[in-house]
Protein backbone atom coordinates (compact mmCIF):
# COMPACT_ATOMS: atom_id res chain seq x y z
CA UNK A 1 0.00 0.00 0.00
CA UNK A 2 2.37 2.65 1.24
CA UNK A 3 5.93 2.90 0.05
CA UNK A 4 8.84 1.49 2.00
CA UNK A 5 9.25 4.55 4.21
CA UNK A 6 5.59 4.34 5.31
CA UNK A 7 4.42 7.66 3.91
CA UNK A 8 1.31 8.30 1.80
CA UNK A 9 2.82 11.03 -0.37
CA UNK A 10 6.46 11.77 -0.91
CA UNK A 11 7.73 14.67 -3.02
CA UNK A 12 11.32 15.43 -3.86
CA UNK A 13 12.23 18.40 -6.03
CA UNK A 14 8.60 18.67 -7.18
CA UNK A 15 8.41 21.38 -9.81
CA UNK A 16 5.45 22.44 -11.94
CA UNK A 17 5.57 24.91 -14.80
CA UNK A 18 2.35 26.49 -16.09
CA UNK A 19 2.83 28.65 -19.14
CA UNK A 20 5.94 30.75 -18.46
CA UNK A 21 5.51 30.62 -14.69
CA UNK A 22 7.11 28.13 -12.34
CA UNK A 23 4.22 27.55 -9.95
CA UNK A 24 5.89 24.98 -7.69
CA UNK A 25 9.59 25.44 -7.10
CA UNK A 26 11.30 22.19 -6.17
CA UNK A 27 9.17 21.13 -3.20
CA UNK A 28 10.24 18.43 -0.76
CA UNK A 29 7.65 17.10 1.66
CA UNK A 30 5.94 13.98 2.91
CA UNK A 31 2.36 13.28 3.96
CA UNK A 32 1.75 10.69 6.67
CA UNK A 33 -0.88 8.00 6.10
CA UNK A 34 -4.11 8.05 8.08
CA UNK A 35 -3.66 11.68 9.09
CA UNK A 36 -5.14 15.01 8.07
CA UNK A 37 -2.54 17.22 6.46
CA UNK A 38 -3.55 20.82 5.93
CA UNK A 39 -2.16 22.73 2.99
CA UNK A 40 -2.32 26.39 3.88
CA UNK A 41 -1.32 29.57 2.21
CA UNK A 42 -2.69 32.66 0.46
CA UNK A 43 -4.61 32.21 -2.79
CA UNK A 44 -2.32 31.92 -5.77
CA UNK A 45 0.50 30.28 -3.81
CA UNK A 46 0.23 27.01 -5.73
CA UNK A 47 -2.02 24.94 -3.44
CA UNK A 48 -4.39 23.86 -6.20
CA UNK A 49 -1.53 23.03 -8.56
CA UNK A 50 0.06 20.86 -5.87
CA UNK A 51 -3.24 19.05 -5.35
CA UNK A 52 -3.72 18.54 -9.09
CA UNK A 53 -0.21 17.10 -9.26
CA UNK A 54 -1.03 14.63 -6.46
CA UNK A 55 -4.34 13.72 -8.13
CA UNK A 56 -2.47 13.16 -11.40
CA UNK A 57 -4.29 15.74 -13.51
CA UNK A 58 -1.46 18.28 -13.74
CA UNK A 59 0.81 18.32 -16.77
CA UNK A 60 4.49 19.37 -16.78
CA UNK A 61 5.33 17.91 -13.40
CA UNK A 62 9.04 17.25 -12.82
CA UNK A 63 10.91 15.85 -9.86
CA UNK A 64 9.66 12.88 -7.85
CA UNK A 65 6.09 12.54 -6.62
CA UNK A 66 5.11 9.20 -5.15
CA UNK A 67 1.49 8.69 -4.11
CA UNK A 68 0.48 5.55 -2.21
CA UNK A 69 3.62 3.88 -3.47
CA UNK A 70 3.14 4.65 -7.17
CA UNK A 71 4.14 7.64 -9.29
CA UNK A 72 1.39 10.28 -9.21
CA UNK A 73 -1.07 9.83 -12.08
CA UNK A 74 -0.48 6.07 -12.36
CA UNK A 75 -3.67 4.39 -13.68
CA UNK A 76 -3.72 2.01 -10.69
CA UNK A 77 -4.16 5.02 -8.40
CA UNK A 78 -7.37 6.25 -10.04
CA UNK A 79 -9.78 4.12 -7.95
CA UNK A 80 -7.76 4.75 -4.77
CA UNK A 81 -7.83 8.54 -4.72
CA UNK A 82 -10.82 10.80 -4.18
CA UNK A 83 -10.20 14.26 -5.59
CA UNK A 84 -12.44 17.29 -5.10
CA UNK A 85 -11.67 20.37 -7.13
CA UNK A 86 -12.31 23.87 -5.85
CA UNK A 87 -15.30 24.41 -8.14
CA UNK A 88 -17.92 21.71 -7.51
CA UNK A 89 -17.59 19.36 -10.47
CA UNK A 90 -21.00 17.73 -10.66
CA UNK A 91 -23.72 17.70 -13.28
CA UNK A 92 -26.09 20.55 -12.49
CA UNK A 93 -28.83 18.99 -14.63
CA UNK A 94 -28.91 15.78 -12.61
CA UNK A 95 -30.25 15.21 -9.13
CA UNK A 96 -27.88 14.63 -6.23
CA UNK A 97 -28.57 10.91 -6.26
CA UNK A 98 -28.28 10.64 -10.06
CA UNK A 99 -24.88 12.34 -9.91
CA UNK A 100 -23.67 9.89 -7.32
CA UNK A 101 -25.23 6.91 -9.10
CA UNK A 102 -23.24 7.75 -12.22
CA UNK A 103 -19.89 8.25 -10.53
CA UNK A 104 -20.48 5.10 -8.46
CA UNK A 105 -21.06 3.17 -11.69
CA UNK A 106 -17.71 4.42 -12.99
CA UNK A 107 -15.92 3.28 -9.82
CA UNK A 108 -17.74 -0.03 -9.49
CA UNK A 109 -19.32 -0.91 -12.81
CA UNK A 110 -21.56 -3.86 -13.55
CA UNK A 111 -24.94 -5.18 -12.61
CA UNK A 112 -23.64 -7.46 -9.86
CA UNK A 113 -22.44 -4.46 -7.84
CA UNK A 114 -25.80 -2.72 -7.98
CA UNK A 115 -26.62 -3.25 -4.30
CA UNK A 116 -23.13 -2.20 -3.19
CA UNK A 117 -23.43 0.93 -5.27
CA UNK A 118 -26.81 1.81 -3.84
CA UNK A 119 -25.44 1.42 -0.31
CA UNK A 120 -22.32 3.48 -1.11
CA UNK A 121 -24.41 6.27 -2.64
CA UNK A 122 -26.80 6.42 0.32
CA UNK A 123 -23.90 6.40 2.75
CA UNK A 124 -22.07 9.23 0.92
CA UNK A 125 -25.24 11.35 0.80
CA UNK A 126 -25.74 10.84 4.52
CA UNK A 127 -22.12 11.67 5.30
CA UNK A 128 -22.39 15.09 3.70
CA UNK A 129 -25.82 15.62 5.27
CA UNK A 130 -27.79 15.95 2.03
CA UNK A 131 -30.36 13.18 2.58
CA UNK A 132 -33.23 15.65 2.46
CA UNK A 133 -31.98 16.97 -0.90
CA UNK A 134 -31.17 13.66 -2.59
CA UNK A 135 -33.89 14.17 -5.19
CA UNK A 136 -33.08 17.80 -5.94
CA UNK A 137 -31.30 18.93 -9.08
CA UNK A 138 -27.69 19.86 -8.25
CA UNK A 139 -28.22 23.09 -10.19
CA UNK A 140 -30.95 24.26 -7.81
CA UNK A 141 -28.84 23.74 -4.67
CA UNK A 142 -26.92 26.49 -2.91
CA UNK A 143 -23.19 26.83 -3.52
CA UNK A 144 -22.32 25.15 -0.25
CA UNK A 145 -24.68 22.26 -0.90
CA UNK A 146 -23.21 21.73 -4.35
CA UNK A 147 -19.72 21.66 -2.81
CA UNK A 148 -20.97 18.87 -0.57
CA UNK A 149 -22.33 16.90 -3.53
CA UNK A 150 -18.88 17.15 -5.06
CA UNK A 151 -17.38 15.94 -1.79
CA UNK A 152 -19.86 13.06 -1.62
CA UNK A 153 -18.65 11.89 -5.03
CA UNK A 154 -15.10 11.72 -3.68
CA UNK A 155 -16.28 9.67 -0.68
CA UNK A 156 -17.72 6.95 -2.93
CA UNK A 157 -15.53 3.92 -3.28
CA UNK A 158 -13.82 4.48 0.08
CA UNK A 159 -10.61 6.01 -1.28
CA UNK A 160 -7.37 5.58 0.65
CA UNK A 161 -6.38 9.16 -0.10
CA UNK A 162 -8.70 12.15 -0.22
CA UNK A 163 -7.40 15.28 -1.92
CA UNK A 164 -9.75 18.12 -1.04
CA UNK A 165 -9.23 21.56 -2.54
CA UNK A 166 -10.85 24.14 -0.23
CA UNK A 167 -13.79 21.90 0.70
CA UNK A 168 -15.26 24.23 3.31
CA UNK A 169 -15.36 27.49 1.34
CA UNK A 170 -18.72 29.23 1.67
CA UNK A 171 -20.07 26.86 4.31
CA UNK A 172 -21.65 28.04 7.53
CA UNK A 173 -19.81 27.37 10.82
CA UNK A 174 -22.03 24.46 11.86
CA UNK A 175 -21.52 22.68 8.59
CA UNK A 176 -17.80 23.37 8.63
CA UNK A 177 -17.58 21.80 12.05
CA UNK A 178 -19.59 18.78 10.88
CA UNK A 179 -17.37 18.31 7.86
CA UNK A 180 -14.21 18.53 9.93
CA UNK A 181 -15.69 15.94 12.28
CA UNK A 182 -16.32 13.77 9.24
CA UNK A 183 -12.72 14.23 8.07
CA UNK A 184 -11.47 13.20 11.51
CA UNK A 185 -13.66 10.12 11.64
CA UNK A 186 -12.50 9.13 8.13
CA UNK A 187 -8.88 9.35 9.27
CA UNK A 188 -9.50 7.61 12.60
CA UNK A 189 -11.97 4.89 11.59
CA UNK A 190 -11.01 4.10 7.99
CA UNK A 191 -7.38 5.14 8.07
CA UNK A 192 -7.99 7.52 5.19
CA UNK A 193 -5.19 9.96 4.41
CA UNK A 194 -6.51 13.47 3.85
CA UNK A 195 -4.77 16.35 2.13
CA UNK A 196 -6.98 19.39 2.67
CA UNK A 197 -6.24 22.87 1.40
CA UNK A 198 -7.59 26.04 2.91
CA UNK A 199 -6.78 29.68 3.04
CA UNK A 200 -8.69 30.04 6.29
CA UNK A 201 -6.07 29.79 9.01
CA UNK A 202 -8.42 28.85 11.83
CA UNK A 203 -9.00 25.52 10.07
CA UNK A 204 -5.30 24.82 10.51
CA UNK A 205 -5.84 23.98 14.17
CA UNK A 206 -8.01 21.05 13.14
CA UNK A 207 -5.26 19.36 11.12
CA UNK A 208 -2.76 16.83 12.43
CA UNK A 209 -0.02 18.33 10.37
CA UNK A 210 0.45 21.46 8.30
CA UNK A 211 2.23 22.44 5.14
CA UNK A 212 2.47 26.22 4.97
CA UNK A 213 2.95 27.45 1.43
CA UNK A 214 3.84 30.78 -0.06
CA UNK A 215 4.78 31.69 -3.63
CA UNK A 216 5.31 28.13 -4.77
CA UNK A 217 7.54 27.10 -1.89
CA UNK A 218 6.93 25.39 1.45
CA UNK A 219 7.57 27.70 4.39
CA UNK A 220 6.98 25.14 7.12
CA UNK A 221 6.06 21.48 7.54
CA UNK A 222 5.09 20.67 11.11
CA UNK A 223 2.26 20.09 13.57
CA UNK A 224 0.10 23.10 14.54
CA UNK A 225 1.41 23.00 18.13
CA UNK A 226 5.04 22.90 17.04
CA UNK A 227 4.48 25.77 14.62
CA UNK A 228 2.94 27.94 17.32
CA UNK A 229 5.59 27.00 19.84
CA UNK A 230 8.41 27.59 17.37
CA UNK A 231 7.19 31.05 16.47
CA UNK A 232 6.14 31.83 20.04
CA UNK A 233 2.61 32.75 18.97
CA UNK A 234 -0.92 31.86 20.08
CA UNK A 235 -2.39 30.99 16.68
CA UNK A 236 -1.22 29.36 13.48
CA UNK A 237 -2.13 32.54 11.62
CA UNK A 238 0.34 34.56 13.68
CA UNK A 239 2.93 31.83 13.25
CA UNK A 240 2.42 31.97 9.48
CA UNK A 241 2.87 35.76 9.42
CA UNK A 242 5.95 35.40 11.58
CA UNK A 243 7.40 32.87 9.13
CA UNK A 244 6.60 35.09 6.13
CA UNK A 245 8.33 38.05 7.76
CA UNK A 246 11.32 35.93 8.69
CA UNK A 247 11.57 34.65 5.09
CA UNK A 248 11.39 38.21 3.76
CA UNK A 249 14.14 39.32 6.16
CA UNK A 250 16.34 36.42 5.09
CA UNK A 251 15.81 37.42 1.47
CA UNK A 252 16.74 41.04 2.26
CA UNK A 253 19.89 39.93 4.06
CA UNK A 254 20.87 37.65 1.20
CA UNK A 255 20.92 40.58 -1.22
Amino acid at each position, binding site marked *: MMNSSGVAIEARGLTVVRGSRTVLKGLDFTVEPGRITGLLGPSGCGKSTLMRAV*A*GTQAKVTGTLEVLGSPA*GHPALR*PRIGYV*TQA*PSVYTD*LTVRQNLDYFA*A*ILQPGRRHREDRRAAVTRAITEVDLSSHAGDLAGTLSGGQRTRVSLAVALLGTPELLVLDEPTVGLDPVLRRDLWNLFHSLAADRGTTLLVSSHVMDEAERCHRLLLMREGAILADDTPEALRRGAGTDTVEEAFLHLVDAAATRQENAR
Partner: protein
Amino acid sequence: MSTTTTGTPPLSAARTLATAGRVLRQLTHDPRTVALLLLIPVLMITLLRYVFDGSPQTFDSIGASLLGIFPLITMFLVTSIATLRERTSGTLERLLAMPLGKGDLIAGYALAFGAVAIVQSLLATALSVWALGLDVTGSPWLLLLVALLDALLGTALGLFVSAFAASEFQAVQFMPAVIFPQLLLCGLFIARDRMAPVLEAISNVLPMSYAVDGMNEVLHHTEITGHFIRDVVIVAGCALLVLGLGAATLRRRTT
Protein backbone atom coordinates in the same frame (compact mmCIF):
# COMPACT_ATOMS: atom_id res chain seq x y z
CA MET B 1 -14.88 -2.21 -1.51
CA SER B 2 -12.02 -3.48 -3.56
CA THR B 3 -12.11 -2.41 -7.16
CA THR B 4 -9.45 -3.74 -9.50
CA THR B 5 -6.19 -1.89 -9.22
CA THR B 6 -4.90 -3.01 -12.58
CA GLY B 7 -5.60 0.26 -14.34
CA THR B 8 -8.37 1.11 -16.74
CA PRO B 9 -9.41 -0.95 -19.74
CA PRO B 10 -9.76 1.21 -22.87
CA LEU B 11 -13.42 0.32 -23.24
CA SER B 12 -15.77 -1.17 -20.67
CA ALA B 13 -19.33 -1.97 -21.65
CA ALA B 14 -20.71 -1.24 -18.18
CA ARG B 15 -19.01 2.16 -17.93
CA THR B 16 -20.03 3.06 -21.48
CA LEU B 17 -23.66 2.19 -20.76
CA ALA B 18 -23.54 4.10 -17.48
CA THR B 19 -22.24 7.14 -19.37
CA ALA B 20 -24.89 6.87 -22.07
CA GLY B 21 -27.56 6.51 -19.39
CA ARG B 22 -26.26 9.55 -17.58
CA VAL B 23 -26.31 11.68 -20.76
CA LEU B 24 -29.90 10.60 -21.48
CA ARG B 25 -30.87 11.25 -17.86
CA GLN B 26 -29.52 14.79 -18.20
CA LEU B 27 -31.76 15.21 -21.24
CA THR B 28 -34.84 14.07 -19.32
CA HIS B 29 -34.36 17.04 -17.01
CA ASP B 30 -34.40 19.30 -20.04
CA PRO B 31 -37.71 18.57 -21.80
CA ARG B 32 -37.52 21.72 -23.88
CA THR B 33 -34.30 20.58 -25.55
CA VAL B 34 -35.84 17.18 -26.21
CA ALA B 35 -38.92 18.80 -27.74
CA LEU B 36 -36.78 21.02 -29.95
CA LEU B 37 -34.62 18.09 -31.01
CA LEU B 38 -37.60 16.00 -32.03
CA LEU B 39 -39.98 18.61 -33.40
CA ILE B 40 -37.79 20.96 -35.43
CA PRO B 41 -36.91 18.40 -38.14
CA VAL B 42 -40.58 17.43 -38.38
CA LEU B 43 -41.67 21.05 -38.73
CA MET B 44 -38.94 21.93 -41.22
CA ILE B 45 -39.67 18.97 -43.46
CA THR B 46 -43.36 19.94 -43.37
CA LEU B 47 -42.43 23.50 -44.25
CA LEU B 48 -40.29 22.25 -47.12
CA ARG B 49 -43.15 20.13 -48.45
CA TYR B 50 -45.35 23.21 -48.89
CA VAL B 51 -42.52 25.43 -50.14
CA PHE B 52 -42.20 22.99 -53.04
CA ASP B 53 -45.94 22.49 -53.32
CA GLY B 54 -45.79 22.96 -57.08
CA SER B 55 -42.78 20.73 -57.72
CA PRO B 56 -42.96 17.41 -55.85
CA GLN B 57 -39.76 16.07 -57.53
CA THR B 58 -37.73 18.84 -55.95
CA PHE B 59 -39.27 18.03 -52.59
CA ASP B 60 -38.31 14.38 -53.07
CA SER B 61 -34.65 15.11 -53.68
CA ILE B 62 -34.15 17.96 -51.21
CA GLY B 63 -36.39 16.34 -48.61
CA ALA B 64 -34.46 13.08 -48.68
CA SER B 65 -31.16 14.93 -48.38
CA LEU B 66 -32.43 16.97 -45.48
CA LEU B 67 -33.53 13.85 -43.62
CA GLY B 68 -29.82 13.04 -43.52
CA ILE B 69 -28.60 16.55 -42.80
CA PHE B 70 -30.90 17.32 -39.85
CA PRO B 71 -29.48 14.68 -37.52
CA LEU B 72 -25.96 15.67 -38.49
CA ILE B 73 -26.49 19.33 -37.62
CA THR B 74 -28.51 18.85 -34.44
CA MET B 75 -26.20 16.19 -33.03
CA PHE B 76 -23.20 18.33 -33.90
CA LEU B 77 -24.62 21.25 -31.94
CA VAL B 78 -25.84 19.24 -28.98
CA THR B 79 -22.62 17.26 -28.63
CA SER B 80 -20.27 20.20 -28.99
CA ILE B 81 -22.09 22.13 -26.27
CA ALA B 82 -22.50 19.08 -24.01
CA THR B 83 -18.83 18.14 -24.14
CA LEU B 84 -17.75 21.75 -23.80
CA ARG B 85 -19.82 21.93 -20.61
CA GLU B 86 -18.19 18.72 -19.47
CA ARG B 87 -14.78 20.30 -20.02
CA THR B 88 -15.53 23.64 -18.37
CA SER B 89 -17.53 22.34 -15.38
CA GLY B 90 -14.63 20.19 -14.19
CA THR B 91 -16.61 16.96 -14.53
CA LEU B 92 -14.31 15.85 -17.35
CA GLU B 93 -11.24 16.35 -15.15
CA ARG B 94 -12.96 14.42 -12.39
CA LEU B 95 -13.97 11.56 -14.71
CA LEU B 96 -10.49 11.28 -16.16
CA ALA B 97 -9.03 11.15 -12.63
CA MET B 98 -11.35 8.16 -12.09
CA PRO B 99 -11.05 4.74 -13.68
CA LEU B 100 -12.96 5.76 -16.80
CA GLY B 101 -11.53 4.96 -20.22
CA LYS B 102 -11.60 7.77 -22.78
CA GLY B 103 -13.32 5.33 -25.10
CA ASP B 104 -16.08 4.83 -22.51
CA LEU B 105 -16.86 8.51 -22.49
CA ILE B 106 -16.81 8.90 -26.27
CA ALA B 107 -18.80 5.73 -26.90
CA GLY B 108 -21.25 6.71 -24.14
CA TYR B 109 -21.95 10.03 -25.82
CA ALA B 110 -22.20 8.42 -29.26
CA LEU B 111 -24.63 5.83 -27.91
CA ALA B 112 -26.85 8.35 -26.12
CA PHE B 113 -27.09 10.82 -28.97
CA GLY B 114 -27.37 7.98 -31.46
CA ALA B 115 -30.49 6.86 -29.57
CA VAL B 116 -31.92 10.37 -29.72
CA ALA B 117 -31.11 10.51 -33.43
CA ILE B 118 -33.00 7.27 -34.03
CA VAL B 119 -36.17 8.73 -32.51
CA GLN B 120 -35.66 12.03 -34.31
CA SER B 121 -35.12 10.35 -37.69
CA LEU B 122 -37.98 7.90 -37.16
CA LEU B 123 -40.38 10.79 -36.62
CA ALA B 124 -39.13 12.88 -39.55
CA THR B 125 -38.83 9.96 -41.96
CA ALA B 126 -42.20 8.46 -41.06
CA LEU B 127 -43.92 11.80 -41.46
CA SER B 128 -42.21 12.50 -44.78
CA VAL B 129 -42.96 9.12 -46.31
CA TRP B 130 -46.50 8.58 -45.03
CA ALA B 131 -48.00 12.02 -44.56
CA LEU B 132 -46.07 14.36 -46.83
CA GLY B 133 -45.84 12.03 -49.80
CA LEU B 134 -42.06 11.87 -50.08
CA ASP B 135 -41.57 9.46 -52.97
CA VAL B 136 -38.80 7.01 -52.09
CA THR B 137 -38.05 4.17 -54.49
CA GLY B 138 -35.96 2.19 -51.99
CA SER B 139 -36.73 1.17 -48.45
CA PRO B 140 -37.36 3.95 -45.90
CA TRP B 141 -35.33 1.83 -43.44
CA LEU B 142 -32.25 2.57 -45.51
CA LEU B 143 -33.00 6.30 -45.22
CA LEU B 144 -33.10 5.74 -41.49
CA LEU B 145 -29.78 3.91 -41.52
CA VAL B 146 -28.07 6.79 -43.34
CA ALA B 147 -29.70 9.29 -40.98
CA LEU B 148 -28.34 7.37 -38.00
CA LEU B 149 -24.83 7.31 -39.44
CA ASP B 150 -25.12 11.04 -40.13
CA ALA B 151 -26.08 11.58 -36.51
CA LEU B 152 -23.00 9.64 -35.42
CA LEU B 153 -20.88 11.77 -37.72
CA GLY B 154 -22.42 14.91 -36.21
CA THR B 155 -21.71 13.63 -32.70
CA ALA B 156 -18.13 12.85 -33.68
CA LEU B 157 -17.55 16.25 -35.26
CA GLY B 158 -19.13 18.05 -32.29
CA LEU B 159 -16.98 16.14 -29.84
CA PHE B 160 -13.88 16.93 -31.82
CA VAL B 161 -14.42 20.66 -32.28
CA SER B 162 -15.43 21.17 -28.65
CA ALA B 163 -11.74 20.66 -27.84
CA PHE B 164 -10.96 23.84 -29.74
CA ALA B 165 -13.68 25.98 -28.19
CA ALA B 166 -13.08 27.80 -24.94
CA SER B 167 -16.66 29.03 -24.61
CA GLU B 168 -20.19 28.35 -25.83
CA PHE B 169 -19.87 31.38 -28.12
CA GLN B 170 -16.92 29.81 -29.88
CA ALA B 171 -18.57 26.40 -29.98
CA VAL B 172 -21.67 27.60 -31.84
CA GLN B 173 -19.45 29.46 -34.32
CA PHE B 174 -17.96 26.13 -35.32
CA MET B 175 -21.35 25.21 -36.70
CA PRO B 176 -21.12 27.62 -39.68
CA ALA B 177 -17.39 26.92 -39.95
CA VAL B 178 -17.65 23.13 -40.09
CA ILE B 179 -21.18 22.47 -41.35
CA PHE B 180 -21.95 25.28 -43.83
CA PRO B 181 -19.16 24.53 -46.34
CA GLN B 182 -20.28 20.91 -46.37
CA LEU B 183 -23.89 21.98 -46.77
CA LEU B 184 -23.02 24.15 -49.80
CA LEU B 185 -20.84 21.50 -51.41
CA CYS B 186 -22.78 18.32 -50.60
CA GLY B 187 -24.96 18.44 -53.70
CA LEU B 188 -28.09 19.72 -51.96
CA PHE B 189 -28.31 22.90 -54.04
CA ILE B 190 -26.81 21.66 -57.28
CA ALA B 191 -25.37 18.36 -58.48
CA ARG B 192 -21.76 18.08 -57.42
CA ASP B 193 -20.48 17.38 -60.95
CA ARG B 194 -21.81 20.77 -62.07
CA MET B 195 -19.68 22.72 -59.59
CA ALA B 196 -16.31 24.30 -60.42
CA PRO B 197 -13.82 21.38 -60.67
CA VAL B 198 -11.93 22.53 -57.59
CA LEU B 199 -15.11 22.59 -55.52
CA GLU B 200 -16.15 19.21 -56.83
CA ALA B 201 -12.77 17.85 -55.75
CA ILE B 202 -13.25 19.36 -52.30
CA SER B 203 -16.77 17.99 -52.07
CA ASN B 204 -15.32 14.55 -52.81
CA VAL B 205 -13.44 14.56 -49.52
CA LEU B 206 -16.23 15.97 -47.34
CA PRO B 207 -18.28 13.31 -45.55
CA MET B 208 -21.64 15.09 -45.90
CA SER B 209 -21.42 14.67 -49.68
CA TYR B 210 -21.59 10.91 -49.20
CA ALA B 211 -24.44 11.25 -46.73
CA VAL B 212 -26.49 13.08 -49.36
CA ASP B 213 -25.38 10.72 -52.14
CA GLY B 214 -26.49 7.79 -50.02
CA MET B 215 -29.91 9.34 -49.50
CA ASN B 216 -30.25 9.90 -53.23
CA GLU B 217 -29.33 6.28 -53.96
CA VAL B 218 -32.21 5.15 -51.75
CA LEU B 219 -34.45 7.71 -53.42
CA HIS B 220 -33.84 6.39 -56.92
CA HIS B 221 -33.13 2.67 -56.58
CA THR B 222 -35.26 -0.15 -55.24
CA GLU B 223 -32.33 -2.41 -54.31
CA ILE B 224 -29.18 -1.71 -52.29
CA THR B 225 -26.65 -0.44 -54.83
CA GLY B 226 -22.87 -0.64 -54.72
CA HIS B 227 -22.78 3.15 -54.52
CA PHE B 228 -25.06 3.08 -51.51
CA ILE B 229 -22.77 0.65 -49.71
CA ARG B 230 -19.74 2.79 -50.56
CA ASP B 231 -21.49 5.92 -49.25
CA VAL B 232 -22.54 4.23 -46.03
CA VAL B 233 -19.06 2.84 -45.42
CA ILE B 234 -17.46 6.24 -46.04
CA VAL B 235 -19.82 8.06 -43.67
CA ALA B 236 -19.39 5.40 -40.97
CA GLY B 237 -15.63 5.39 -41.46
CA CYS B 238 -15.43 9.16 -41.17
CA ALA B 239 -17.54 9.07 -38.01
CA LEU B 240 -15.23 6.48 -36.41
CA LEU B 241 -12.12 8.36 -37.51
CA VAL B 242 -13.34 11.64 -36.05
CA LEU B 243 -14.47 9.88 -32.85
CA GLY B 244 -10.91 8.57 -32.55
CA LEU B 245 -9.56 12.08 -33.05
CA GLY B 246 -12.02 13.30 -30.43
CA ALA B 247 -10.70 10.72 -27.96
CA ALA B 248 -7.19 12.02 -28.60
CA THR B 249 -8.27 15.51 -27.52
CA LEU B 250 -9.25 14.25 -24.06
CA ARG B 251 -6.22 14.71 -21.86
CA ARG B 252 -5.94 13.25 -18.39
CA ARG B 253 -3.31 15.83 -17.53
CA THR B 254 -3.85 19.46 -18.38
CA THR B 255 -1.55 22.46 -18.00
